[in-house]
Each structure stands twice: as structure tokens, then as C-alpha cells.
């Protein structure tokens, strides 16, 4: 994990990416008890490109130069496959911009705020994503007012209502 974070920080320092933040289950584990996951989801801002196509090739090349090994759609650092994802929509872009600065064993890094983790999970919409949102709600680790505002802004109110129903069901 440390090697992956050091490499990502190098990518920012070298201008290969503008910034990054950790999402997914690893990001959620910053706020919640550990939950099983196979990979680290890293969301990045790519530098402005003149070409029409989004390519992660420069990111992959730089990660390989920093000791990563390509493994299908991942770049592996030690035990950890790192999946590089882009700011594919406005919600993800906001989540990267507003991510929390923190550190992992002294290595600076950035993690999505709980409200963005939940909103992105609602947008992704798989059962495990809903389960994660329900966990955030049950553990009081998300500001429900702020999440509700995000849900309205990004058209996720129905999904949030469903998660809230699930959280109320679990509290019975």
C-alpha cells in the first residue's frame, strides 16, 4: 500500500496526473471498519490533453517505471492491485477536488469525503454499494444533510431513499 501511494504522489509531482483521491472500499475503510476488497480504487484528474481520446497509457507507463506491475486492468504494487479511474462525471470530479488530505503511515494521500463515497456508491448502484452506504448511515459516519444535498444535485434522491430504507430496516 505504501509503495502504491508513494508512486501516486510521484505522478502528481511529475505532472503525469493533476491530482488523485482514493475511493471505493479502501477509501471507505478510512471511516468504517475494514471491509474486504481486492483492489485500491484511485480516481485521477488527467492533465488537459489536446487529443480527443482519454488514455491512461502515460499513467500506466509512469507507474511501471516506479515499480508497478501491470496485471490485467490493474497496476500491482506488492499485494495491492491499483485500479486507475478517471473523473468520468461531475460527481467524481467534485469528489476528487474536495477529498480529504490525510496520511497513511506518514505518506501523504487523499481520500474521498464520506458524503462523496456514499453518493458515488449510490450512483454505481450495485448491491454491495448500497450495503456500504447503509453501513455509513448506521455508523453515523456520513452527514445525512450534506449527502441529501448531493443526492438532489446529482439526481440520486431515489437511490438515497432506498438506502435509508435499508438502514432503517437494519436498525429494527
Amino acid at each position: 500500500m505504501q509503495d502504491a501511494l508513494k508512486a501516486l504522489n510521484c505522478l502528481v509531482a511529475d505532472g503525469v496526473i493533476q491530482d488523485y483521491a482514493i475511493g471505493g472500499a479502501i477509501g471507505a475503510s478510512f471511516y468504517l471498519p475494514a471491509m474486504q476488497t481486492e483492489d485500491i480504487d484511485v480516481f485521477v484528474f488527467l492533465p488537459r490533453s489536446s487529443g480527443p481520446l482519454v488514455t491512461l497509457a502515460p499513467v500506466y507507463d509512469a507507474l511501471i517505471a516506479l515499480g508497478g506491475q501491470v496485471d490485467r486492468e490493474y497496476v500491482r504494487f506488492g499485494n495491492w492491485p491499483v485500479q486507475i479511474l478517471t473523473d468520468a462525471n461531475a460527481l467524481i470530479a467534485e469528489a476528487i477536488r474536495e477529498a480529504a488530505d490525510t496520511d497513511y503511515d506518514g505518506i501523504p494521500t487523499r481520500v474521498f469525503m464520506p458524503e462523496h463515497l456514499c453518493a458515488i456508491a449510490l450512483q454505481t448502484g450495485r448491491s454491495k454499494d448500497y450495503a456500504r452506504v447503509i453501513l455509513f448511515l448506521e455508523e453515523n459516519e456520513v452527514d445525512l444533510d450534506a449527502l441529501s444535498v448531493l443526492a438532489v444535485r446529482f439526481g440520486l434522491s431515489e437511490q438515497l431513499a432506498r438506502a435509508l430504507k435499508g438502514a432503517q430496516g437494519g436498525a429494527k
Partner: protein
Amino acid sequence: MTEDALKIDEEKTAFNARAKASMRAYLKSRTWPEKIASIERMNEAGKLAREGMRKARARKGAPRDRSL
């Protein structure tokens, strides 16, 4: 279903709930690197379990019949 099967010991149930809540609070209070180490252990355990299951199935011969 027998009457015994429906019997609930409220005291023991409350004890179990307290124990679970206490463990949950402990797990949540751990540092991020400690949680990541825990996820690494889960993944390792998952790998071992899948490997064990694969070997067990190979010993039995045919793959599990999912048609039933």
C-alpha cells in the same frame, strides 16, 4: 417447528448484542493502516479458502452441480 426452536434467552441475546457492538467499536477505532492490514489478512484468508475449495472439488472429481 418445536417450541424450543422458538425460545429466545433475552439476557444472552442482549449479551451477544453488547459483545458485537463492543467489537464493532473496537474495529472502527483502529487506525487506517491497521484496517488495511486487516483487509490484507481477509484477502489472504479468502485466497486460502478458494484454493482449499478448488482442491476439494478436484478430489471429488466433478464440479459442483448447480442445476439442482
